[in-house]
């Protein structure tokens, strides 16, 4: 079934549908129905998800339903995220409705991808090969991912590297790219045309804003890519670019630390992860500027394994 993009619907229509039977959006291989009585979701959906296939039909089979609900009391208005009617996380201040939706959707996609290997890492593609960017919070993986995805790399995901265990390739589940604190300004100044939500402050992760991925990445959501390169980035202000090649064994160990479902998948999980990265080139890098890094990435990184 092919749905028209969400952008064809007027924002007011999205709002009334969210308040009613819901809006179904295809995010990679998942079709989810979204409802919300908050009044705060239709605008970011309209802005960021315009290229996503969408349907307003109440009767189509979906993978799951998420709902953003007003809760709390007049002096402490809150929003809660419901997945299939259950609330997996605590409520947040009402103004954080949109970030809560994005976090919740990430959680739902990670959970429902449990039969694949799900790694906490950003991933982009160029020339048919995936570049995986794992990284601890603060290592700059999201910023780097945004910088690549907003130039000529294709975004597969800014949070979840999902390895299909049948084909051992990375699934494409593109989503708006989350940016925090200083990265927001950095990306805005570098990419003048980027569509970005207004930053929301005082979330548990600091200021947060979301950048719209390229329509092309969303439209190619069914095109997976084998892993060509794994890069462990570390941002350090003022540092000169330093590139240290590492072994695949080292990369495997680091990736497994960042795998959500390694325990669930047991030995098949790590065997498949090892196979999926067996031919990848692996590096640890320290950088302070994209301008140093991008030429190297665009040349070295794209040499076929």
């Amino acid at each position: 079934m092919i749905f028209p993009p969400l952008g064809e619907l007027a924002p007011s229509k999205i709002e009334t549908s969210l308040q009613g039977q819901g809006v179904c959006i295809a995010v990679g291989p998942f079709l989810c129905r979204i409802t919300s009585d908050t009044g705060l979701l239709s605008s970011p959906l309209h802005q960021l998800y315009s290229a996503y296939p969408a349907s307003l039909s109440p009767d189509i089979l979906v993978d799951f339903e998420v709902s953003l609900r007003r809760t709390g009391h007049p002096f402490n208005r809150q929003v809660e995220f419901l997945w299939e009617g259950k609330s997996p996380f605590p409520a947040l201040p009402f103004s954080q409705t949109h970030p809560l939706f994005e976090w919740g959707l990430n959680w739902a996609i990670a959970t429902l991808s449990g039969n694949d290997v799900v790694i906490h890492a950003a991933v982009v593609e160029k020339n048919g090969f995936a570049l995986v960017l794992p990284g601890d919070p603060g290592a700059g993986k999201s910023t780097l991912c945004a910088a690549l995805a907003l130039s000529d790399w294709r975004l597969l995901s800014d949070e979840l590297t999902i390895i299909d265990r049948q084909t051992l390739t990375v699934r494409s589940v593109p989503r708006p790219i989350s940016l925090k604190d200083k990265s927001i300004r950095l990306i805005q100044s570098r990419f003048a045309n980027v569509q970005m939500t207004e930053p929301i402050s005082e979330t548990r992760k600091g200021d947060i804003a979301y950048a719209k991925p390229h329509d092309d990445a969303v439209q190619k959501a069914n095109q997976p890519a084998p892993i060509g390169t794994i890069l462990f980035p570390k941002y350090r202000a003022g540092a000169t670019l330093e590139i240290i090649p590492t072994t695949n064994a080292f990369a495997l160990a680091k990736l497994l630390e960042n795998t959500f479902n390694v325990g669930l998948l047991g030995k098949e999980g790590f065997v498949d992860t090892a196979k999926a990265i067996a031919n990848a080139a692996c590096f640890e890098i320290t950088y302070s500027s994209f301008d140093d890094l991008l030429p190297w990435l665009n040349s070295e990184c794209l040499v076929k394994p």
Partner: protein
Amino acid sequence: MPSQTLADLLRTPNTSATLDEAGWNSVIRTARQTDLLGQLGSAVMETQKKETLHWRIQRAFNLELTTARRRNEAALWEVRNIRKLIPSEIPIIVLKGCAYALANDRNAAGRMFSDIDLMVDADHLEKVESALISGGWKPSQVSAYDQKYYREWMHEIPPMEHVRRRTTVDLHHAIIPIVSRFAFPAQQLIAAAIEILPGVFILSPADRIIHSSVHAFLEGVPTKALRDIYDITCLMKQHYPDQPRPEELLVRAGQLGLEQLLMAALEASEIIFGKHVRPRHQTVKHSLRGRCLAVAAQSPLKPGQLLGNLMAHALLAHSHWMKMPWYLLIPHLARKAWIGLTQKNTAT
């Protein structure tokens, strides 16, 4: 056609072809809410060719079935480890989900459980607890009151979590709180238990069904009761086919003083899942307790119904009545209410 509920589909999984997409949405959602999706998947995929199911439905079922299988394997691995930790002369009895998996009971396929429920004779409790601690299971940090609540009144000690693996063990010395009006010595269960691995025992099929019946009432939570009743339905079909009221089972429940609870649970199982047991026209008078349990357990399937909500509260009240005598219960509930008003995060 009336909308098919999860219960209908669990009873007759071969009718799933009649469900339309909207029907599947609602069934899968309800199954997720009641933790029955894996068991539904197992039942449907047993009666129906995989290819006839939409790939989204297959994917949802497959994930639950894999997760349940992995958790089963992990739990059985823990049980073998625990067996090595505990002095070999002490028999350990595995209860609930882990026992169904060990017994290879039909309800184990796709059944999700997270805690390992073990039972030992009360005389061995201290030794077993310290053996578990030496193996890395950390006793819960609970208040002095909760320690007393568990140790002096209940049938289990506070849950223990493994420091590295995060697995939780619930160590029991009975299946009913020791201060309950239904309390009886666990030796009666231990004597009839079946050795399934060297030194590892499970309750006899009759006792497994009786334990599930007790559990449905003791937890006082509709979704859990529904799952217990589905367990009972599967165990009855497997161990007592075509016998709605097996003599052996009733006699056993009588010995333990649990006949009324068992009967009520069997009735609820018939009301919710049980066309197979008796012809429709034959009117059987069900007990009030059985009917109330059935309505309460079905309340998550039909949210928002007044009677269902009422019975869900009645089930909770009944669980308190079962757990302890009024002279303990009233101060306990008053204390819980006070803590609930003044701070968050209290135990049971």
